[in-house]
């Protein structure tokens, strides 16, 4: 081990997690993301991708192993503390408060910041998402699918996280909107925020990612640079079973 290398932005060590005590879903995952990286987690339905990121975020019990954020052990810190340590999470479903207005969704996230910077942070994030800024008093439940994802991302960015984890932000969106969301994620990553992206939309995700890992049956089976994985027959085999590559598009 090098003595000068900075700790990874996010890491797990032999992580075992699941909803029931005797039923591990994530089974011993060692996973590392360097600061500034954009890593995509791929894998078939039910592989445990959501469970892995929810466990890191504190929503699913961790049975054994560890999770680290910039070297600090966050395995046991409660869910509401993780965001204070710089870990922001956008869940796969129900990732905004539909009964609150756009402004209230953002303000809620800003409530954990010192009072004097709250308005400033909300204004900064609104600059990034002019569509949302234009209708701040609208009920979030009335937004379209794409706007909801944008709001969820905007909400996560309020605290200036060091690591942003997103669980299938493209689910249910049209290809055009997926393109917009992913372009936005690429910009956010370029601005220095480490991103972990769970995706089924393999092609689009690999196009913006630096690196990909493949989760199958709760274990990391394969990993590599996004560019080479996109061509790798192992991806088609592991991820799609016997089906030919390309079928996942348009999901």
């Amino acid at each position, binding site marked *: 081990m090098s003595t000068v290398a900075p700790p990874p932005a996010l890491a797990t060590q032999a992580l075992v997690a699941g909803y029931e005590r005797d039923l591990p879903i994530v089974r011993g995952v060692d996973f590392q993301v360097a600061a500034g990286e954009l890593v995509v987690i791929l894998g078939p339905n039910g592989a445990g991708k959501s469970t892995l990121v929810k466990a890191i*975020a*504190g*929503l699913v019990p961790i049975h054994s192993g560890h999770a680290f954020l910039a070297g600090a052990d966050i395995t046991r810190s*409660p*869910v*509401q503390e993780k*965001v*204070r340590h710089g870990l922001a*999470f956008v*869940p796969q479903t*129900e*990732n*905004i*408060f*539909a*009964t*609150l207005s756009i402004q*209230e969704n953002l*303000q*809620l*996230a800003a*409530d*954990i910041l010192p009072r004097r910077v709250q308005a400033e942070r909300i204004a900064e994030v609104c600059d990034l998402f002019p569509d949302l800024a234009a209708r701040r008093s609208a009920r979030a439940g009335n937004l379209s699918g794409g706007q909801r994802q944008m709001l969820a991302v905007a*909400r996560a960015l309020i*605290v200036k996280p060091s690591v942003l984890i997103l669980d299938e932000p493209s689910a249910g969106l049209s290809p055009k909107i997926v393109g917009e969301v992913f372009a936005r994620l690429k910009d956010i990553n370029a601005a220095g925020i480490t991103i972990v992206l769970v995706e089924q939309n393999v092609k689009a995700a690999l196009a913006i990612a630096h690196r990909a890992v493949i989760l199958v049956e709760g274990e990391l089976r394969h990993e590599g640079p996004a560019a080479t994985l996109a061509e790798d027959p192992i991806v088609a085999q592991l991820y799609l079973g016997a089906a030919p590559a390309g079928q996942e598009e348009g999901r």
Partner: protein
Amino acid sequence: MNPQVLVDGLIAGAMYGLGAIGVTLTYSILRFANFAHSELLTFGAYAALALSSALGVLSAGLLAPIGPFSFGWSLPLAAIAAMALTGLLALAVDAVLFGRLRVRRSSIIVMVMASFGAALTLRSLLEFVFTSKPAYFTRELQIALPLGGGMRATPDQLLALAVAVLLVVAVHLLLTRTAIGRSMRAVSENQALAGVVGVDVRKVIRVVWLLGAALACVAGIMAGLLVQLRPYMGFDLLLPLFAAAILGGIGSVPGAMLAGLIVGLAEAGTVQLIGAEWRTAVAFVILVLVLLLRPQGLLGRPQA
């Protein structure tokens, strides 16, 4: 119809509304119907009685009626302390009962049954300590003031109405304008996501208990002041409170007050038109009709 029905209905309705706010808040945020809420109401009323009497013993001057009202300064002072005590009782019940069930992720029906158990225990304890004989905050007689149009109300009744309206506005502003209110609405919609955003859900739950219990206490004091104190006073209000909370729309504070007034007026009208023995049926009929026709209530949002 005698116009006095309107006054009687509004005053009873304001009391229902106040109790129903507590029900609707705990229901929407803790996600179960707490049938022990009515015992918080009874406890609050008796706690205020005990404290007010104690203050009267310390200084008889505190018992002298304030202006046109039937009670002295001992009651408002005792009310503040009683609200705090009722809040502490709710936190204690949560710590020994509901909190443990939450940690075990018990189903809603288990929580509801537990609340029945807690209600029974609390009610029996109150009956044991204070006996089932009715008690009164004051023996002063009050003269009802003419309000015009053949309607009359005592100063106590008018005060109760004003306090109820004031508290509804205050709670509504708390929910819509403050950070803790925002957190409460967030937890009510999606507890897991609220945690992700940084809300301390356990703190929110404590605040909800304190707030709901304090409001129950005020409603109980009102019932005690306008009628009498009995160990079953809360239990008898259970049906109208839940009818009002559900008619108003679970989670809606203005809805709970509006629906409380509707239930109060409907009861008063029924007593006048059909007969007093039908009073208790009114809340039940309203409850059934809402559940059949508009389960989300008047101002509630449809279940997603």
